[in-house]
C-alpha cells in the first residue's frame, strides 16, 4: 500500500547561532499523498521548507531523493529533483500575463534570440490551466488584474507545468475566501490523483483535517509526531500535539493576574474599529496598569490592528484615549493623545536607521528638547544617557548609528523613544521578534515595571509563550474578529489555539 517516498529527510538538523531551527527531523513525503505539516510560529516549518527548496543547507542529516542520498545545494538542484515550493509571498511578475508567468521558467532557459511566440506560450499555458480545472482563466490576462486566489493558482500552474513531483504549499489559503479555498482543495486533490506529493503547510486545522492524508506536527524545531489522518482525528488532537503536554500554564505566573483587580477607568477604548477586508467591529478597552495581549494567526487581522489604532492607516470606528476621541490617519495626534507605538517591523518602521542613538531617543518628543527653536543638545545627551542606563542599553556612543546595534538594543531605544513622550498607553507589536533570549527577558521586565507604574500596555504577538506569561488578559482574533476573551487561569495555549483556529467558514 505505502508507496516508496519521493523525498526522505533523515535526522536533518539546522543550527543557527543560539537557536536550533531543525532538530534531528526525520520525515518522508510519498507520491499521491497530501502531507500536512503544522506547528506554531517558530516550530521549524519554514526552515524545513527552505531545506527542501535548496535555499538553506542543513548542518547535519541526510536528504534522500528516490532512495538515493542527495544534497540540494541550490534551488536549481531542488527543482531538478522535482520539488517546487509555492511560498506565501507570491513571486509572479505582475507586469506579465498569466501565460507568460506560467511559461516563465521555460522562457528563462531559452536562448535570447529565439523567436517568442506569445500564441504558443498562451497555448501551452492554457493546457496546464485546463489540467488544473482553471479553464476560466484567460492566459492573456495580466496577472496584476487577478485576485490573490487566482494569482496563487497561476503560481501553482507554473510549478505543475515544470513537472513538479512534489509541491510544497506554504499557508496557501491564508488570503482566500471559503469558495476560493474549496477550489484550491479541488486542485490539490486533482494533483494527488495524478501522483504528485503535496506538502501542505498551514495554521488552519479544520482545513488540514479536511484535506490531509497524513499529518506531521512540529514544535521547537523537532518533529513531534506523524500520523495518518483518520475520522477520529480532531482539532483538539492537533492542538494538543502542537502545544505539547508540558505547557506552562498561566497559574504559575500569577503576578500579572493579580493586577487585574487594581484596574481603573480605561485608558484606551476601541468602539467598532474596522479596516475593510482585514477586520471588523473590534471593540475592547485597555486600562491603566494592565498588559492586554492580542493573539491570533497571521491572517486573523491582528497584524493590522496596531497600525489602525495608532492611525498609520485609515480606519472606521472610534478610538478614545482617556475619553477623548483620536482622529484617524495622523500618528502625530495619537502621540499627542498619549499613545506610544513600537511596530513589528523594527528596521523598516521602528528605528530611524540612518540616525544616531540620541536622535532616535528624542525623535518623538522634539518639542521638549528645543529652546527658541534650536535643539538643546546637552539636554538630549543627558536624557538619552538616562534612558540608556535605565534599560541597560549597550551602545558605544550616543552618536552611534542605530543600524549598527543588535535587535534587542534597537528595541530598547525605540521603547525609550516612546516613553520620552510620557505616554499613557504603550502599543507593542511583536515586541521581541528577532531578539535574543536575554534581551527578551529584560524587555518583559521593563513592561512589567511600566504596568505596575500605571501604564496601559497593549501587546500584539504571534509568540504564544509571550502572550501567556506576560499578559493579564488575552483577546484572540480569528478571521478579522475577536473570537474570544480570556483572563487569569483561562489563558492556556490550548484555549488560545482553539479560539485562533476557529475559522468563520468552517465553524458555520
Amino acid at each position, binding site marked *: 500500500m505505502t508507496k516508496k517516498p519521493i523525498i526522505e529527510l533523515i535526522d536533518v538538523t539546522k543550527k543557527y547561532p543560539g537557536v536550533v531551527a531543525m532538530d534531528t527531523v526525520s520525515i518522508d513525503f510519498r507520491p499521491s499523498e497530501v502531507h500536512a505539516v503544522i506547528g506554531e510560529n517558530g516550530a521549524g516549518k519554514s526552515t524545513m521548507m527552505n531545506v527542501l527548496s535548496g535555499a538553506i543547507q542543513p548542518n547535519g542529516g541526510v536528504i534522500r531523493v528516490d532512495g538515493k542520498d542527495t544534497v540540494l545545494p541550490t534551488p536549481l538542484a531542488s527543482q531538478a529533483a522535482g520539488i517546487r515550493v509555492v511560498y506565501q509571498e507570491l513571486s509572479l511578475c505582475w507586469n506579465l500575463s498569466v501565460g507568460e508567468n506560467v511559461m516563465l521558467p521555460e522562457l528563462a532557459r531559452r536562448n535570447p534570440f529565439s523567436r517568442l511566440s506569445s500564441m504558443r506560450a498562451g497555448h501551452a499555458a492554457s493546457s496546464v490551466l485546463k489540467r488544473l480545472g482553471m479553464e476560466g482563466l484567460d492566459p492573456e490576462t495580466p496577472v496584476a488584474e487577478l485576485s490573490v486566489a487566482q494569482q496563487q493558482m497561476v503560481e501553482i500552474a507554473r510549478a505543475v507545468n515544470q513537472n513538479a513531483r512534489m509541491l510544497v504549499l506554504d499557508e496557501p489559503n491564508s488570503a482566500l475566501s471559503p469558495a476560493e479555498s474549496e477550489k484550491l482543495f479541488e486542485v490539490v486533490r486533482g494533483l494527488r490523483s495524478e501522483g504528485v506529493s503535496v506538502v501542505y503547510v498551514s495554521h488552519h486545522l479544520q482545513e488540514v483535517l479536511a484535506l490531509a492524508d497524513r499529518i506531521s506536527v512540529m514544535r521547537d524545531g523537532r518533529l513531534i509526531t506523524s500520523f495518518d489522518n483518520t475520522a477520529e482525528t480532531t482539532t483538539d488532537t492537533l492542538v494538543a500535539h502542537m502545544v505539547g503536554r508540558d505547557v506552562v500554564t498561566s497559574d504559575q505566573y500569577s503576578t500579572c493576574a493579580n493586577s487585574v483587580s487594581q484596574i481603573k477607568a480605561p485608558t484606551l477604548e476601541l468602539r467598532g474599529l474596522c479596516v475593510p477586508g482585514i477586520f471588523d467591529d473590534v471593540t475592547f478597552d485597555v486600562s491603566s496598569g494592565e498588559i492586554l495581549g492580542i493573539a491570533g494567526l497571521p491572517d486573523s487581522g491582528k497584524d493590522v490592528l496596531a497600525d489602525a489604532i495608532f492611525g498609520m492607516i485609515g480606519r472606521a470606528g472610534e478610538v478614545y484615549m482617556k475619553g477623548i476621541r483620536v482622529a484617524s490617519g495622523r500618528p502625530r495626534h495619537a502621540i499627542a493623545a498619549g499613545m506610544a507605538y513600537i511596530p513589528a517591523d523594527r528596521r523598516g518602521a521602528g528605528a*530611524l536607521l540612518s540616525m544616531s542613538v540620541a*536622535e532616535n531617543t528624542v525623535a518623538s518628543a522634539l518639542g521638549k528638547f528645543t529652546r527658541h527653536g534650536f535643539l538643546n543638545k546637552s539636554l538630549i545627551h543627558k536624557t538619552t544617557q538616562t534612558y540608556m542606563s535605565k534599560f541597560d542599553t549597550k551602545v558605544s556612543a550616543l552618536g552611534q548609528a542605530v543600524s549598527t546595534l543588535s535587535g534587542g538594543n534597537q528595541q530598547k531605544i525605540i521603547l525609550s523613544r516612546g516613553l520620552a513622550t510620557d505616554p499613557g498607553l504603550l502599543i507593542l507589536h511583536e515586541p521581541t521578534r528577532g531578539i535574543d533570549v536575554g534581551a527578551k527577558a529584560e524587555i518583559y521586565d521593563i513592561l512589567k515595571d511600566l504596568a505596575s507604574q500605571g501604564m496601559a500596555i497593549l501587546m500584539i504577538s504571534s509568540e504564544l509563550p509571550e502572550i501567556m506569561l506576560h499578559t493579564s488578559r488575552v483577546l484572540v482574533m480569528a478571521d478579522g474578529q475577536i473570537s474570544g476573551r480570556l483572563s487569569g487561569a483561562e489563558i492556556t495555549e490550548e484555549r488560545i489555539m482553539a479560539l485562533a483556529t476557529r475559522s468563520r467558514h468552517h465553524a458555520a
Partner: protein
Amino acid sequence: MSRPSLWSRIAGRKELGVFLALVVMCVFLSFSTSSFLSSINLLNVGRQVSLLGIMAVGMTFVLISGEIDLSVGSTYALSGLGSGMLIVMGWGLVPALMAGLMLGASIGLINGLLSTYGRLPSLIATLGMLSIVRGVALLMTDGQPVTVNTRNGALPQVLEKFEFMGQGYLFGLVPMQLVFFAAVALLGWLVLSGTAFGFRVFAVGGSAKAARVSGIHAESVKIWTFVIMGLLAALAGILSMAFLPSGQAGRTGLGLELDVIAAVVVGGASLSGGVGTVLGTVLGVLIIGVLRNGLVLQGVSPFTQEVMIGLVIIIAVAIDKWSTRSRTT
C-alpha cells in the same frame, strides 16, 4: 560613552574626503600657477561659485529629505527676470525683490504639494515644472532679453542698490554675492544641524515610515524643503540679474539644476535621502569652482573642462560609495 576626542571627531567626519580633495587641488594649483593663490583670484572664485552655492544649500535640504528638484534652473530664470522686469517698470527695490522671492517660494510650494499629496515622484513633478516654469518665463518676456537700466525705465536710486547686490563689494573687498552665499550657508547649517526642523528633514529622508511612527508630519517637512529650495533658487536668480544685469528666458540658468545637484552630491549627500551636510555641500561647490578656475588658469580648453568636471563628479562619488561599502562589510 565619553565624548570622543577632537581628532577622532574630525577623522570620523564624512566631509574629510572632500576636504582633502579640495586641499590637494589648491596646493597643486598654487604651485603650478602663479595667480591662483592671490586673494583677488580666491575672492573671484568665491564670487563665481556663490549663485551655485546658494542653490546647493537649498538642494541639500531637498536631497536629505529624500526628494529631488529639477526645476531650480527655471525658477532661477523666472524669478530673476520677474524681479528685473518689475524694476524696469519702476517698482521699488524691496517690492520687486519680494515679488521675485515669492514667485520662487510658490514654485517650491507647488513642487512640494505635487510630490507629497499629489503622490508624484518628485523627479517627475519637478521635471514637469522645469518645463512649465521655463515656458512661463518665455511667455512673460516674449522671448526678448530683459536688461535692467535707467534707459528702460528703472529708477536710478533703485538701480544703484540693485546693482550693488550683484556687483558690489562689502568693505570694497568681498563680493556681495559671496556675502549672500556665506549668509545662506551659515543659516542653512544652523537650521539643518541645530533645529527640530533640520532633525525632521533627516528623519523623513532616512525612513519616512519610521518618521511617521515617531509623530513627524512627513508631508509638511518635505513641502517646506521645496519652499526653501524655491526661495533660494529665486534669490540666486535675482542676484544673477543684478550682476549682469540682463537675462533672457531662453538662456538664463539653462541646465543649472544638474550643476547644483552635482555639487551637493560631490559634497556627500545621498540621492536616496537621509544623508548630507551643509559643510559638505559648501566643499562640493568649492571643488567645482576651484576646478573650473584652475582649468582656466592652466589654459585648458572649455571643451576639456567639461570632461574634467564630469570625471571629478564620478570619481568623488565613487570614492565615497566604495569607502562606505568597505566600512560596512
